[in-house]
C-alpha cells in the first residue's frame, strides 16, 4: 500500500488489520514476509503521526492559549 497524502487513518488501519489477519492465518509467504512487515511498519508510523498531529490540533482547538506551551 502506497503511503501518500491521500491515505486516511482509517484506510491505513484497515490495511494494518488485514496484514495482521493474513499473518495470523499464515497466508504470508516467507519470501515476502519482511517486505510485508516493512509495509506494516510504515503504516504504523503513518498512523502514529496522524494521531500525534490530531492530538496537537485538538489541544490547539480546545485550549488555544496553551498553544505556545505544549
Amino acid at each position, binding site marked *: 500500500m502506497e503511503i501518500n497524502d491521500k491515505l486516511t*487513518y482509517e484506510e491505513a*488501519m484497515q490495511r*494494518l*488489520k488485514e*496484514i*495482521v489477519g493474513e*499473518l*495470523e492465518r*499464515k497466508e*504470508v509467504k*516467507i519470501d515476502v*514476509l519482511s517486505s*510485508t*512487515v516493512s509495509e*506494516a*511498519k510504515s503504516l*504504523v508510523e503513518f*498512523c*502514529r503521526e496522524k*494521531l500525534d498531529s*490530531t*492530538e496537537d490540533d*485538538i489541544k490547539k482547538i*480546545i485550549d488555544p492559549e496553551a498553544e505556545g506551551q505544549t
Partner: protein
Amino acid sequence: MAQNRKVYSLSQLNQSLENHFTTKFGERTFWVTAEVIKVNAKNGNFYLELADSKNNTMTAKSSATLWSRNYRVIQDQVGATELQGILKPGNNVLFALKITYHPVYGLKLNILDIDPAYSYGAIEKRRQEVIEKLRAAQLLDKQKSLKLPAIIKRIALIGSPDTSGFTDFNDELFSNHAFNKFVIKVFPVRVQGEQAVPELISAVKEAACFDADVIVILRGGGSKMDLAIFDNFDLANTIASSRLPVLTGIGHETDRVVADLVAHSFFKTPTAVAAYIHYAIASYKEIMGDLYDRIIHRAQRLISVEREEFNHINRYLQHHSGTMIQYWRTQFQQFENEVITAATSIVHASKRTQDNTIHQLIYQVERTVQDHQNEVDRMLEDIKVNAVHLIDQERKFSIVQRIDQIRSHSINQLERYAVVLENYNDLLDMLNPHKMLMEGYTISTIEGTDVQDVAGALTGQTLKTLTSKQLITSEIKAVKNTTKEDGNQR
C-alpha cells in the same frame, strides 16, 4: 166466722200494736243505714223518707222523723252546715233510731243520732276513684302547663250570682283602686242540686270559647256533701281540657275537691281568687317599672359597648387591611428573590453542566486518541509476534520435518534394499549345488539336461554324474522305474 168474730175497735187494735211495739222494741236503739229519699222541714222538725234499694229496685221504705230537739243535739256535734249537707236526698246515712208506734200516726222511725263519718266515707271513696281515673287519663296536670297571663283583665266568671261567694269576689276585685279595668263575663250556674254538674260543665265549655284570660269558678262554701259536686269526673275532665287556665275559689276548710286538683290554680275562697288577681297585677307593674329602668341602663351600656366594639372593628379594618398589604408586599419581595435565586441557579447549573460536558468532551477525545495509539502499538506488536511466530513455525515444522522425512525415508529405503539383498543372498545359498554335493548327493545329466527331465529312452545314453570330488561319465545299461515321488528325489 161472723159469730165467732171478736170485734175490736181500731183504737183497741192500735193500742194493742203500740203496746206490742213498746214491749217488743221499747227503749232499744237501732243503727240503720238508709238512703234519704225526701226531706221536709216543718217547725224545726224534719220529716224524712228513707229507703233501701238493691239493683235499682226499692227493697224497703220508711218514714222517719228527726225532732227539732234531737236535731239540735246532732247539729252541735256535726255542725249545722254539715248536717244540712248530709240530710239531703240521695245521701246514704247511718242513723241511730228508735222504732215507735203511734195509734194515730202509725209506725214511725224516730231519729236520735247520725254518724257523718259513714256519709263522708262514701264521698271520699268516690273522690279517690275519680282522682285515679283522672291520673290514668293524664288529666291531673294538664292545666298546669298553661301559662297564666301576667295581667288578668278578661275574666270568665262561673258561679251563682246570688251567692255570697260571688258577691265577695266582685267586691274584692272592684274595691281595689290600682287597677279596675276588668272585663267580666258571667256564666251563671246553680251550684247545688242535681242540675249543678251539667250546668257547670256546659258553662266551662262555653267560657273556654270566650275571649278571656282565665276562667274563674266560684262557690262560696258549703257542706262536704254539697261540695261533692266538684268531685264529678266529667266536670274535672272539662276543666282539665279547657284551653283557658281555670282558677277555682271553692270555699272549704280542709280537703280539696277534685276540681281544685285539675284546675291551673286553686284558692280557698272566692275572695282569695280576686286578691290573687290583684296581687299579680300589682307585682307585674312593679316588675315592669324595675325592668324599664334596667332596660334603659342596659340600652345605654349596650350602645357604649357597641360603640367600643365598633371603634374596635374600625381600627381592625385599618390595621388588618394594612397588615394584609404589608403581608403581600413581603410575599412579593420573596417572590422576586425567589425568581432571582432560581433563575441565577438555573444559569449556574447550566454552566456547571456545560463545564462537565466540556470536561467529558476533552476526556473522551484524549481517550479516543489514546485508544488509537494503543491500538496502533498493539497492531505493530501483533505483526511482530505473528511474523516471528510464522518463521518459528516454518523452522520447527517445515524444515525439521523435511529433514526428518528425508532421513527416515532414505534410511528406510536403505534398509529395504538391504532386505532385498539378503533375500537374494539366501536364495543364492539355497540354490548353490556345492552344498548338496558336499552332503553326498550327486547330479546326473545327459547332455547337460537333468536326467529326470530327459524324455525318451535313457538306455544307451551317456550319463554325466557330478559328485563333490569327481565328474563321472558313464553309459546307461538299464532303467528301472521306482515310485513317482521317489523319482523326483535326487
